[in-house]
């Protein structure tokens, strides 16, 4: 049996719940065998006695007194425990231990608590994304699914279900949308206007919307549909629903479609739907040629062409980049892109100029990137091989560091092409990050670096600030990604 200590607080009341809590804390202290805090009523004193906790002091207490009783391995341990708990007994309030602010854990509960909610933005891991999207559609919510790694079967099922429910299923792998003037996920703050966009490509939408906005036009809505929507398996369900919405939208007077070339069975359905609309369309199926378009549609080969066509066809001002050729006399272009569609656009422009192009995300006409194939290398740094286990290069520009160092160290590379994509979701200062990277890289003065900034003045990073940071680092900045590629072609020694 250890040492029993009682301390009596005369005329001090605390409710039994608080005392039970304090008793628990006291009993958990070092060297304490048993402990109790009770008001000194006869029945309570009996309980303390039965528990071997009552000493003479406690036995003398009155009903209105609080007894602190502790039995510990020795007198010191008992005293330390009593002294430690005493401030807590005397304190008036207990610090809140948990987060007393409730947030719903499920879509169902959130929808119930917020009956006005109309869109679920889903960015959870791919293995759970389809289940969450299905729940959202069941509740009549439109879905924007940023998550990728969703099976094509799930995508087909979700899109069919969404069509039955009459809601938009944007994605999976939908990185960009602008709805009611609000940028969602990776998107830019653009001027509001009358051009509506349906796009299967996030950076494609970003490039076209910002070019339109920066050249005097405006965007009504931009609907992302995910990269696979126009494959034959999916059948363009979301693209067609997106067209329906924009066709019916009074604020939209011109509709732009952006996608890789559609599947063979999908294409005629898209063309048919375009033909049913009274609104003019611009169709940019990057890399597709020989389209049999309805009368109300015009084709655009590149993103820049699409933006120009949507604004009425006048050419944007060309960016002049006067160059005398690189110091290293390199003949190759190396593209290091964070935006997959921007990489595709560059490949097209190089191919159209008659160059040999290889890429890890090759467009029709370009070769697959491998060590033993010659050609101008255009690399999509957002491809799985670079992003395995790390964020997308638009979030973490560090991915570009090593390929950039390699390109600058390679004397056969005369021009390096880069993209900077800003806006919501993107890195807070990608140009600054790139400039800082370059400081430590030998060869930067021997190679010409040309880039463009996809974004607007209203974006958090501010386009003009990003341009200045690039220029200060010795990078030539073009007005668009296409202009950057065209400028590269003009560098002496390259186009040969």
């Amino acid at each position, binding site marked *: 049996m250890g040492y029993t200590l009682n301390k009596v607080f005369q005329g001090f009341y605390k409710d039994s719940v608080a005392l039970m809590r304090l008793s628990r804390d006291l009993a958990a202290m070092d060297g304490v065998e048993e402990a109790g805090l009770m008001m000194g009523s006869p029945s309570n004193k009996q309980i303390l006695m039965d528990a071997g906790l009552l000493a003479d002091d406690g036995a003398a207490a009155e009903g209105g007194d609080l007894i602190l009783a502790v039995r510990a391995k020795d007198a010191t341990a008992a005293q330390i425990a009593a002294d430690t708990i005493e401030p807590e007994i005397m304190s008036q309030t207990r610090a809140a231990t948990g987060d007393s602010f409730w*947030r*719903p*854990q*499920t*879509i*169902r509960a*959130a*929808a119930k*608590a*917020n009956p*006005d*909610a*109309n*869109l*679920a*933005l*889903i*960015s*959870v*891991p791919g*293995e*759970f994304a*389809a*289940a*969450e999207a*299905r*729940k*959202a559609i*069941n509740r009549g*919510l*439109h879905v924007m699914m*940023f*998550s990728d790694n969703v099976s094509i079967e799930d995508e087909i099922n979700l899109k069919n279900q969404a069509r039955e429910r009459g809601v*938009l299923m944007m994605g999976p792998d939908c990185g960009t949308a602008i*709805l*009611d*003037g*609000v*940028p*969602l*996920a990776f998107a830019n703050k653009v*001027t*509001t*206007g*009358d051009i509506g966009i349906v796009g299967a490509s996030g950076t494609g939408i970003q490039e076209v919307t910002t070019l339109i906005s920066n050249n005097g036009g*405006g965007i*009504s*809505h931009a*609907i992302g549909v995910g990269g696979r929507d126009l494959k034959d398996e999916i059948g363009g369900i979301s693209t067609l629903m997106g067209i329906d*919405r*924009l066709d019916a*939208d*009074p*604020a939209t007077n011109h509709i732009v479609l952006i996608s890789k070339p559609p599947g063979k069975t999908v294409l005629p359905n898209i063309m048919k739907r375009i033909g049913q609309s009274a609104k003019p369309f611009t169709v940019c199926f990057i890399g597709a040629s020989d389209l049999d378009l309805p009368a109300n549609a015009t084709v655009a080969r590149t993103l820049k062409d699409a933006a120009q066509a949507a604004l009425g066809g006048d050419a944007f001002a060309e960016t002049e980049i006067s160059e005398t050729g690189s110091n290293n006399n390199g003949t190759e272009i190396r593209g290091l892109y964070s935006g997959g569609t921007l990489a595709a656009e560059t490949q097209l422009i190089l191919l159209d100029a008659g160059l040999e192009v290889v890429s890890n995300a090759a467009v029709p006409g370009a070769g697959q990137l491998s060590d033993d194939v010659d050609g101008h290398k255009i690399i999509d740094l957002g491809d799985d091989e670079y992003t395995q286990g790390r964020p997308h290069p638009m979030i973490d520009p560090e991915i570009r560091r090593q390929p950039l160092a390699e390109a600058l160290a390679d004397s056969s590379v005369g021009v390096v092409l880069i993209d900077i994509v800003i806006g*919501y*979701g993107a890195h807070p200062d990608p140009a600054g990050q790139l400039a800082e990277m370059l400081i430590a890289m030998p060869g930067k003065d021997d190679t010409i670096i040309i880039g463009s900034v996809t974004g607007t003045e209203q974006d958090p990073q501010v386009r003009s600030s990003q341009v200045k940071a690039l220029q200060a680092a010795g990078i030539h900045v073009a007005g668009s990604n296409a202009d950057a590629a065209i400028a590269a072609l003009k560098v002496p020694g390259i186009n040969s």
Partner: protein
Amino acid sequence: MASDKDTPSLLGGKLSVINVGLDKFATELADHDVPVVHLDWKPPAGGDPALAALLSKMGA
């Protein structure tokens, strides 16, 4: 050209979002004065994707 306030809703009502996943998206929406509920999301069905899929098919 219409101002922001005149933009008719594409979704049939003022944009109001339930954000499931990255909290950054919720913060940015709130900055645009879009009503947004950021879920206290946890992997559904205790992290069993097959069971989660079954439940979503049962209308959970």
